[in-house]
C-alpha cells in the first residue's frame, strides 16, 4: 500500500502525520510526505527551483518535524522505516563456510519527504499519479471551513479530481462511529480492508449503508451486503446495517456526518458517483466535523 500525505505548515497537518503513522503501523504502507511550495515566492519573484526559496521557509522545516513525529510513533527496533545498520557481518557463503562481509540493509518500507513547486492541487494529484498511490491523506480544520491557507478548498478539489481514495482527516472529535456508504456490487477488496483498518484504529462502531431506489434492496445488493457482513464479522467486527433510500440520501449524510467518520465508495460506475455530485462532496468535506473518506 502507498500513502501520500499532503501537508502544509498548519497544526492540522501535524495531526494528520500522527493519523497516518497509526494507519501505517497497521498496514506497513510506503509513505510519502509531500509539501507544495507556490512558484511565486513571498517576495513576488517567480521561483525556478527550490533553491530560489530560502530554506528558512516554514514548509521544509515543517516537513522534517512531521517526519520526526511520524517516526516517533514506532518503537525504534520495530520501525520498518528506519535505515538499519551498515557494517561487517559473518554470512554463511556456502555450507560450513562463513565470511565476514560488509552488509548494508535498507529500510523495509519507504518513508519519503518531498517538496514540489507549483499549484498545490495539480502537484498533489501529479505526485499521486506518478507514484501510483492508493490513498491520499490530507488534514484540514473544520472551524476554518476546511481551507488550506488562503488558497481555498484544496482538500475538496483534490478529493473531487483524484482517481485514488482520499481521506480528509479532521481531529476535532473522537471517531466513535464509521458510516460507510458502499456501492456493494463494485466495492473493492482494498476499500473494505481500509475500512477495517480505520475501525480497528479508532475502536469505532461500523455502520454499513445499503442504498436502495425503492423500499427494498435488490437481491444482488443483498447478497453482496451479506458477504460484506460476514467478512467483517469474521474479523471480529460487528457492523450495523442501515437501509437508506436514494431520495433520503442527502438528509441521511448530513445527519450522520455529525456523528462519525463518513466513508463513501465513489469508484467508477458506482451509484454514489451518479447521485452525489462533486458540489455535494465539497459541501460534506467543508461542513463535517469528522473525517471524510472517499473510496475509489
Amino acid at each position, binding site marked *: 500500500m502507498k500513502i501520500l500525505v499532503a501537508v502544509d505548515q498548519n497544526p492540522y497537518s501535524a495531526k494528520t502525520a500522527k493519523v497516518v503513522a497509526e494507519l501505517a503501523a497497521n498496514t506497513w504502507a510506503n509513505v510519502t510526505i509531500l509539501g507544495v511550495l507556490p512558484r511565486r515566492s513571498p517576495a513576488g519573484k517567480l521561483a525556478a527551483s527550490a533553491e530560489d526559496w530560502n530554506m528558512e521557509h516554514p514548509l521544509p522545516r515543517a516537513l522534517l518535524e512531521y517526519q520526526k513525529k511520524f517516526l516517533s510513533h514506532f518503537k525504534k527496533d520495530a520501525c520498518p522505516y528506519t535505515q538499519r545498520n551498515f557494517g561487517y557481518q559473518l554470512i554463511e557463503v556456502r555450507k560450513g563456510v562463513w565470511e565476514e562481509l560488509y552488509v548494508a540493509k535498507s529500510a523495509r518500507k519507504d518513508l519519503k519527504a518531498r517538496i514540489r513547486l507549483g499549484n498545490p492541487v495539480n502537484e498533489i494529484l501529479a505526485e499521486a499519479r506518478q507514484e501510483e498511490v492508493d490513498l491520499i491523506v490530507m488534514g484540514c480544520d473544520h472551524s476554518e471551513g476546511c481551507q488550506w491557507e488562503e488558497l481555498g478548498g484544496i482538500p475538496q478539489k483534490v478529493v473531487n479530481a483524484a482517481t485514488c481514495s482520499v481521506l480528509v482527516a479532521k481531529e476535532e472529535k473522537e471517531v466513535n462511529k464509521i458510516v460507510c456508504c458502499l456501492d456493494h456490487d463494485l466495492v473493492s477488496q482494498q476499500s473494505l480492508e481500509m475500512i477495517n483498518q480505520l475501525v480497528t484504529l479508532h475502536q469505532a462502531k461500523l455502520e454499513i449503508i445499503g442504498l436502495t431506489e425503492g423500499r427494498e434492496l435488490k437481491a444482488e445488493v443483498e447478497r453482496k451486503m451479506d458477504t460484506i457482513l460476514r467478512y467483517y464479522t469474521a474479523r471480529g467486527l460487528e457492523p450495523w446495517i*442501515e437501509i437508506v433510500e436514494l431520495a433520503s440520501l442527502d438528509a441521511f449524510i448530513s445527519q450522520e456526518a455529525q456523528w462519525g467518520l463518513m466513508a463513501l465508495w465513489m469508484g467508477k460506475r458506482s451509484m454514489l458517483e451518479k447521485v452525489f455530485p462533486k458540489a455535494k462532496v465539497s459541501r460534506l468535506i467543508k461542513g463535517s466535523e469528522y473525517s471524510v473518506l472517499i473510496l475509489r
Partner: protein
Amino acid sequence: MIRALILVDNRLASGIALRYACRLANQTGMDLQTIYIEEAEREVRPPGTGWVKRTWEKGLLVSAGAEISRLIDEEKPTCPTLRKAKMVVGDRQMEILRELDEGSYDLFIEGTLYAFNPSNFQVNLEARLSGGFPCPILMVKNFVELKKAALLLEDTTDLWSLVPSFFKTLEGAHLEFDLLHVKFTKPGRLSFREDEGGVEAADGGEIDERIASARKMLAEAGWSPQGTGVLRGVPVGVADDLQDYSLVVACLPRQTAGKNAMLELLSRVPSAVLVCRQ
C-alpha cells in the same frame, strides 16, 4: 424451554435474524422452529382442490426449498436446537398465526433491516400486533452480540405483560439490562437522561413507584437491573440514547391508534426489539 417460531426466506434480513436467534438460543437453550411461507400472488387462485391443489403448492415450494435448507444447514452445526423449516403456501400473516396457535409457541422472531425511513418496520409490526399474535415478537434488525438490553416502561405500560415477557423470553441469557422509564415530549424539547434519584418532583413520585414495582417483579424472578433511569424527549432523541443497547424491550397496545410514540421509537433503534402486546 422457550419455543420460538422464526420466519425465514432468502432475504438478508431473514439470514441476520436466523443468526441472531441462534446466538440467543445458544445462551438460553431456546428451541427454534423455522417456517417458510410462499405467498402466491393474490390474483392467482389455486387450481382446484385436494391433490391438484397440493401438487400446485409443492411446485411453488420446490425452488425455495433448496435455498432454505442450505440456510438452515449453514447454521445447524452451531445451533443444535434449530429445526428444519416447515414449508407452507398461503397468506403470510394467516399462516404464521395458524402455526403460532397450533404449536403453542412462546415467541415469534422475524428479521427486518434497520432503515433510515422506518415506515416499513412500523407497518409490519402494526400488522403483527393487530393480527393478534398470541406471544411476544422479536424483530431483529442487526446481527450483534447480545450484551445489554434496555427494558422500557411508559406511564401506560402494563407491567404484568412486560416484565414476565422479558424474563421468560430471556431466561438463561445472563443478560445485563437497564430499567428505563420513557417520558415522551413534544418536538422542540431536548431529550436527556436522569440517573436514579434525579427524577423531577412533579411526576417523579409516580415514576419512582412504577420503577420500584417493576424492580420488585424482576427481583422475584431473580433478575436485577444494572441501572435505572428516566429518558425524556421525542422518539428520535430517545432512540439516540438507546444506540448502545443490543436489545430494546417494550410493550405496545394491540391497536396503535394514530401516531404511537413508542412504536416510532422502536422503529428508530438499530438493535433488535422485543415487543409484548398489552
